[in-house]
């Protein structure tokens, strides 16, 4: 029997939904729910995690992220300006830096700054410094590219208008171009913060005292001490979402606002 195009589309959608339901059912049936409930959803034994995971873990995650973002943003702005410089040496240095730190895993940077640098120079430094530097250095490489795109998205006429009013190059940059570039890159910059929040978990490779634990370390610690299997990690993951989902919504709001003001 011949079907109209509309009927065909509807049938196709029904078939797709059917496949999805069957696949989901198969997974649900295949799971060993007894083991899972003991090892992943075993919330009864989590008492000792609270309120530490919030007062220490969540707090430290936020602090590490914020410090790294400050370093990443300042470093990123400097690198972006270097990359757009007319002086070739600056461009080469910035390009080398950006490609290097975007190309290696952030974990290696943590290890380098946590163990390598102290070993090489014969000193020890505070974990806060290591996190801020490692995370900030990696972040600045990513943020630099975002900012460079933003700076280039500001129409050339803006710089020309500023210069024609007698403003020196740097003054035109600071007063006219950079503020507009920041407005343009607000959504991708918010996404950088989300990535940073998650990357702060890499701190687990360093030796930490209890007061320096962040969310992931707290979760891992809970795995070995609470006897609730992986459940503590599940809780840690939930706290990441508490931070990242609002940020994600914020980025979307910035995006729609940018779309509205654009003519």
């Amino acid at each position, binding site marked *: 029997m011949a079907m109209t195009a509309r009927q065909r589309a509807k049938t196709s959608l029904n078939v797709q939904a059917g496949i999805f339901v069957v696949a989901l059912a198969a997974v649900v049936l295949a799971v060993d729910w007894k083991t899972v409930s003991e090892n992943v959803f075993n919330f009864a034994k989590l008492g000792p995690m609270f309120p530490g995971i919030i007062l220490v873990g969540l707090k430290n995650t936020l602090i590490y992220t914020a410090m790294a973002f400050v370093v990443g943003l300042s470093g990123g702005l400097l690198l972006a300006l270097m990359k757009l410089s007319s002086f070739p040496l600056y461009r080469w240095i910035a390009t080398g830096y950006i490609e290097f730190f975007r190309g290696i895993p952030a974990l290696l940077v943590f290890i380098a700054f946590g163990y390598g640098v102290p070993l090489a120079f014969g000193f020890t430094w505070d974990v806060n410094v290591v996190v801020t530097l490692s995370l900030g250095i990696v972040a600045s490489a990513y943020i630099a590219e975002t900012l460079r795109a933003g700076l280039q998205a500001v*129409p050339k*006429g*803006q710089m*020309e*208008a*500023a*210069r*024609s*009013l*007698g*403003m*020196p190059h740097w*003054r035109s940059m600071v*007063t*006219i171009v950079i*503020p*507009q570039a920041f*407005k343009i890159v607000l959504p991708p910059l918010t996404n950088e913060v989300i990535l940073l929040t998650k990357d702060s978990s890499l701190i687990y490779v360093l030796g930490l005292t209890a007061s320096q634990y962040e969310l992931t370390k707290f979760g891992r610690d809970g795995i070995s001490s609470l006897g609730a299997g992986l459940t503590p990690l599940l809780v840690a993951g939930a706290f990441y979402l508490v931070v990242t989902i609002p940020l994600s919504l914020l980025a979307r709001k910035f995006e729609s606002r940018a779309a509205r*003001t654009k*003519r």
Partner: protein
Amino acid sequence: MNDVEQNTSAAQVKAAGVAIKNLRKSYGTNEVLKGISLDVSPGEVVCLIGPSGSGKSTLLRCVNLLEQPNEGSIHVGGFEATDPDVDIDKMRRKVGMVFQQFNLFPHLNVLRNCTVAQTKVLKRSQAEADEVARRNLEHVGLGHLADRFPDQLSGGQQQRVAIARALSMDPQLMLFDEPTSALDPETVGDVLAVMRNLARSGMTMLVVTHEMGFAREVADRVVFMDGGVVVEEGSAEHVVGAPTQPRTKEFLRRVLDPTHIEVVEE
């Protein structure tokens, strides 16, 4: 428009002249200006006309060094723009520029657009800068829009703000790069009225334009450029009204009577 007419004419400006000698400018192998010489006396209004690609905008942009000439010299007021040691920023304070695309600063409101360079470059106090800006906004008939942002204004209003912004630096020379080409037809008149008043106030003006009516009425001199050279120059009556060069005649025929040809480029 009437308020525009009335408000401006009073203030007399201190005007500077321009002397351009044998100016050459190339992009790669493409020579855009092939030895241009042009003198503009203080207080004179000169309109540059010509087909697109004739080099008139490039010439204008060379005067405040938005383009770097390859050869020749430019004197503006007491400055030699082409001297490698010239303080470009100091020279540009004397030279106002109005762009085809307005180039207002979208993140600043109208008043701040007119004060930002005053406070950052001329080191005026915010109060003094505000006063100067408001006076110039009144002159262009937009004093009531000082708190708006550029994207809330029509093209004609934006261009008048751009003129007020340039005037707030107390320039001695104003450059206009096709100031009405990006405007809706019904807003062109307001911008031209502001420019007419500015011309009457004694400002030296170098205007790249396609508005032949404006050139006829306001220009002390009209310069027709084509292919990077000055083809014909003289009074507006002479150049626009009774051109002698065939290229000028052809260009004016196309501009003044565009429906007679198949392809309209300008």
